[in-house]
């Protein structure tokens, strides 16, 4: 049945000839020059470790998850990285559901080799108990739309997702010190993976008898091309992998030229990925600040630093200054891990998120007219590092508008206020904050259009 149903789309001779002929004058069908990449957009989902990449018409999503498993016997203190590619029938009428076809397997292997063999992801840091428990990181790549050059897009998606993925922190504890405690993200900030370098894949297509080289072929060019080569390299100038499986033969000098071009392109891609990841991390840090409202009672008993006992009953009007203080405190706090853990436990027993009186008076960076860029630029980078653990944020109060007795749950806040740059809540009361959906929808739309 699949054979009958699979699309029997074939390129016409006219289209083939047109592509080949226009390449003779250095023109490609979509107006690019032979060594230009298409427009790349990297977006992230709300969770850590989910990315969505659009390279021209090619649309790819990647999700990273992790779980604790037993390590391989010959590598007892290394975690594992596994890679699953799904060529969804959504992407192309000729992709079929079920067993991955050879293209899917090849793509998976190229990306896997680029990441694993080059030791881009540090697997030793994934070990929890040597020989017994290690983290196994699983990357799922879903191809949504096949516009050509799936390897590069999938690679970028995987790298972006890995860069933003965070695994839960776990410590040995319990009565005998042998029990493994996995801390949920609300209690302890999850830890990002250690990534040494970004191996970026660059794909070349060889079209026509003269073997004209094009970079980033579209799916029309892929149908026309006689051979392809994928080079995976990083910004340090290391070649992580080269894949040229059959196809037309090319001169070694052409291959060397491709490598040189690829190293330039890899640099571009790496910087784009890094920028996208950074802005995601910044936004995440800002969101974290709101989220930890619910655990603010946690820090009530951190005595000398904040005079916290008054906390539960009043709002504190603090300035930005407090955020810096709190950052300092958190880095101190990190050294006193055990003590903090105890504090958390006692506090969690006493209060729970919902009844937190302080309510949604989130530390809104914009309510005092703080310049959001300044905020992002300096503190945020520090904020990301340590303090988001229990960033008890001094509530910069929305003056006199807060109704203390209204326990509004946290969840409104991240949505409400995370739209950085949309400062609309200055004048409004708490009631407005909890008025839901149609408002949020508009804000969300605005946020996305602003992005």
């Amino acid at each position: 049945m699949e054979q009958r149903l699979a699309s029997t789309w074939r390129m016409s001779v006219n289209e083939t000839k047109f592509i080949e002929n226009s390449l003779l004058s250095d023109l490609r069908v979509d107006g690019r020059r032979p060594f230009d990449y298409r427009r790349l957009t990297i977006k992230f989902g709300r969770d850590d470790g989910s990315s969505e990449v659009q390279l021209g018409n090619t649309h790819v999503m990647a999700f990273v998850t992790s779980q604790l498993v037993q390590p391989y016997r010959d590598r007892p203190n290394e975690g594992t990285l596994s890679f699953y590619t799904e060529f969804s029938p959504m992407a192309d009428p000729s992709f079929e559901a079920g067993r991955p076809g050879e293209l899917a397997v090849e793509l998976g292997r190229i990306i896997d080799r680029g990441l694993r063999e080059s030791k881009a992801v540090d697997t030793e840091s994934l070990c929890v108990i040597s020989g017994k428990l290690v983290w196994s990181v699983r990357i799922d790549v879903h191809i949504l739309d096949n516009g050509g050059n799936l390897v590069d897009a999938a690679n970028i998606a995987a790298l972006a997702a890995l860069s933003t993925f965070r695994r839960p922190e776990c410590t040995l504890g319990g009565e005998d010190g042998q029990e493994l405690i996995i801390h949920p993200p609300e209690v302890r900030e999850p830890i990002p993976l250690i990534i040494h370098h970004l191996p970026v894949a660059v794909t070349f297509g060889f079209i026509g008898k003269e073997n004209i080289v094009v970079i980033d072929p579209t799916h029309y060019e892929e149908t026309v091309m006689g051979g392809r080569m994928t080079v995976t390299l990083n910004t340090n100038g290391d070649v992580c992998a080269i894949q040229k499986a059959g196809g037309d033969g090319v001169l070694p000098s052409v291959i060397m030229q491709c490598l040189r071009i690829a190293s330039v392109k890899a640099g571009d891609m790496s910087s784009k990925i890094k920028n996208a990841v950074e802005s995601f991390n910044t936004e995440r840090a800002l969101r974290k600040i709101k989220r930890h409202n619910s655990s603010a009672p946690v820090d009530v008993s951190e005595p000398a630093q904040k005079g916290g006992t008054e906390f539960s009953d009043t709002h504190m009007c603090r300035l930005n200054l407090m955020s810096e203080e709190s950052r300092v405190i958190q880095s101190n706090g990190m050294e006193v891990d055990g003590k903090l853990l105890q504090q958390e436990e006692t506090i969690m027993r006493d209060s729970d998120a919902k009844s937190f009186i302080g309510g949604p008076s989130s530390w809104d960076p914009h309510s005092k007219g703080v310049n959001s860029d300044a905020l992002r630029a300096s503190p945020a980078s520090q904020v990301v590092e340590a303090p988001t653990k229990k960033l008890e944020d001094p509530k910069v109060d929305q003056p006199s508008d807060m109704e203390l007795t209204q326990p509004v749950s946290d969840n409104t806040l991240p949505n409400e206020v995370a739209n950085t740059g949309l400062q609309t809540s200055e004048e409004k009361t708490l009631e407005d904050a909890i008025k839901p959906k149609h408002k949020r929808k508009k804000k969300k739309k605005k946020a996305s259009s602003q992005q």
Partner: protein
Amino acid sequence: MDIDRADGRTANQLRPLACSRNVLNRAHGSASWSQGETKVIAAVYGPKAGTNKNENPEKACFEVIWKPKTGQIGKAEKEYEMILKRTVQSICLSNVNPNTTTSIIIQVVHDDGALLPCAINAACTALVDAGIPLKHLAVAICCCVSQNGHVILDPNKLEEQTLKAFAYLVFPNSIISLPSEASSKLRGEPLEQGIITSVTQGVMPVEDYFHCLDRGRAATSKLSDFLRKNLHLQTPNNPSKAG
């Protein structure tokens, strides 16, 4: 009577809806639908020639492929595929293109409760985007019953897991009809009061189920309006998407 919901909604409030059509290039029809944090992308290819051996060749056939976010495809995904397929079969005009197969592919982007209704809505929009002939549209909604018998609409994942029971309900699109009602009556009942699909989980008393139905039906008018507005607004797309 007021339920305290975690995100501040009342019992009858839906999460913010967002829908976009034509999000993919290769697919004949595609749509992305999100309710709150739950987001689903649907793509439609078809009609393609030929049907499955088991299917009736005198009618159009549908196949649904459900792709979860991570992990293997298991029984739950197969069940969703089956429910979606039967729902779609009931809204499509199956005599228009006999001996053809239309594929609907669902990709879960994020699951925060009410996943199946979101997928059904997305699939419906994608079918419209692909131009598959339909009798009417379908709108899906999830209703939850709490411990004290209150009915809540559109729960998120936490609410779904903690409340007593929930039901996924699919209704036909509400009709904006002209004064003559004779044509829209089916066996004495107006057509828009029918239910296409109902999937329940958990135990609930019969009255509560009927309450769910009523609430769900009332909510479908809001959903239908949203859907209609969305389908109107899109500009005409490129003529040919084949290949």
